[in-house]
């Protein structure tokens, strides 16, 4: 299993447990197929209830997480193991993509355009679902439609992204371009 470190090790604003998070992320890393000797750093900003998540680095693998992303929506300030698995698998599949060579043409993290980010997330979460992680496909579909349009072309692109196992950046970019054309009035 990958070696996972969590910062901070103790939480004051929320009722999170660093060891639990490390254990869950390690299990997810195995499901994603990352090497057993991978090092993964999880930096959590517990001072915000917002839920932004960022892949800060692939070497070493570093995920920056706003506390709301790991929070139980039913119980404020409590940890949601489902959310940890959901977020970690989405970001670690992206790590896997970047390390595969298929996404060498992709812009660096932070410069990936929002439509591409949303599409890439669908590709990741679809694989998470097939890896046995409890994710919500309808939630992703709604998120995708908000970004790419409420039309049949966007829905077809969503299914392609969701069901694919090994897209490249060029293929993902082509799908985003196709749905953008369908969204723009002639």
């Amino acid at each position, binding site marked *: 299993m990958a070696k996972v470190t969590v910062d901070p090790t103790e939480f004051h604003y929320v009722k999170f447990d660093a060891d639990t998070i490390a254990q869950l992320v390690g299990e997810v890393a195995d499901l994603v197929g990352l090497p057993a000797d991978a090092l993964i750093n999880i930096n959590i900003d517990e001072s915000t*209830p*917002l*839920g*932004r998540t960022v892949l800060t680095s692939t070497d070493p693998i570093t995920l920056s997480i706003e506390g709301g992303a790991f929070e139980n929506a*039913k119980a404020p*300030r409590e940890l949601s193991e489902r959310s940890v698995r959901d977020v970690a698998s989405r970001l670690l599949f992206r790590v896997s993509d970047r390390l595969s060579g298929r996404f060498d043409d992709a812009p660096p993290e932070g410069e990936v355009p929002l439509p591409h980010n949303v599409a890439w997330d669908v590709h990741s979460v679809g694989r998470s679902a097939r890896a046995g992680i409890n994710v*919500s496909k309808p939630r992703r579909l*709604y998120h995708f439609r*908000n970004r790419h349009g409420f039309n049949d072309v966007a829905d077809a692109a969503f299914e392609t992204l969701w069901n694919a196992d090994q897209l490249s950046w060029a293929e993902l970019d082509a799908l985003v371009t196709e749905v953008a054309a369908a969204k723009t009035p002639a």
Partner: protein
Amino acid sequence: MKKLLQPDELARDARFSRVDMAERFNDKRTVNRDVDGEPGISSRNQRRLSPDTPGASDAARSLMHGIFVGEIQALEGAGRTCWDFEVGAGEDKVPFELKLDMARQCWDESRHCEISIKLSEWMGTELGEFGESAFLFQAACNADPVLRLTGVNRALEGLAIDVFNTMREFGKVAGDPVLEFCEDWMLADEVTHVKMGSDWLRRLTEDNPERRERALEFQRVVDKLFSLGGARGENDDSPIKLARRFRELAGFTNEEVDEIAGLAKEAAEELAARQAS
């Protein structure tokens, strides 16, 4: 059947989880980040809901789930108001016509529940996915029917007008026809519910200015409490924009809407001060 049911006696199945409002209000995380140079203002509440922001769809889902449980409680509240008071002229009694209005509101709220369930499904939300706070029903527990209608119909259903209008705009900008039309239909009913509150407040307190002032004070308390830490306002970038025109249609005067805008600002400042201490 029991009268004056308490919020913790509301029936919910295992999917739902109750959230304590005190815990939510005392969550110090909401003020820990400076926004546009203003410390102590909730960053969650300072973002206008727009499809261009990365977390917009999840924020919309959460907000609409809050509306959904609010619809359940509005149904329960209007139903209790039909039952809790006998017909008569005293302060603990109501005219029969008020009960008819509440029965009509129950019909509307039932429809809103069904619309919200379908809308949740459309938005990819599981019923009970988010915690439920019972603040609407709590306002509907007041023993004075005038205060109850003022707190629920004018304050909280007024808030619903602002939220529905905001979400309708979000749906329009995102190109989501289902969200836009659902919000539009429910918004029309909310205007009627708020108008009922305004009309009954004036009719029942016509000869009793002291009772009217008590009711308006209760409304002020509820309005301020649920200005969502300053999220509701009149600026274009306010996450929930005061729907001035719809409030006028619902029987609010310009001065009353100005007062709500002022209360929202005060609420933001007080929240920041309380949580910074």
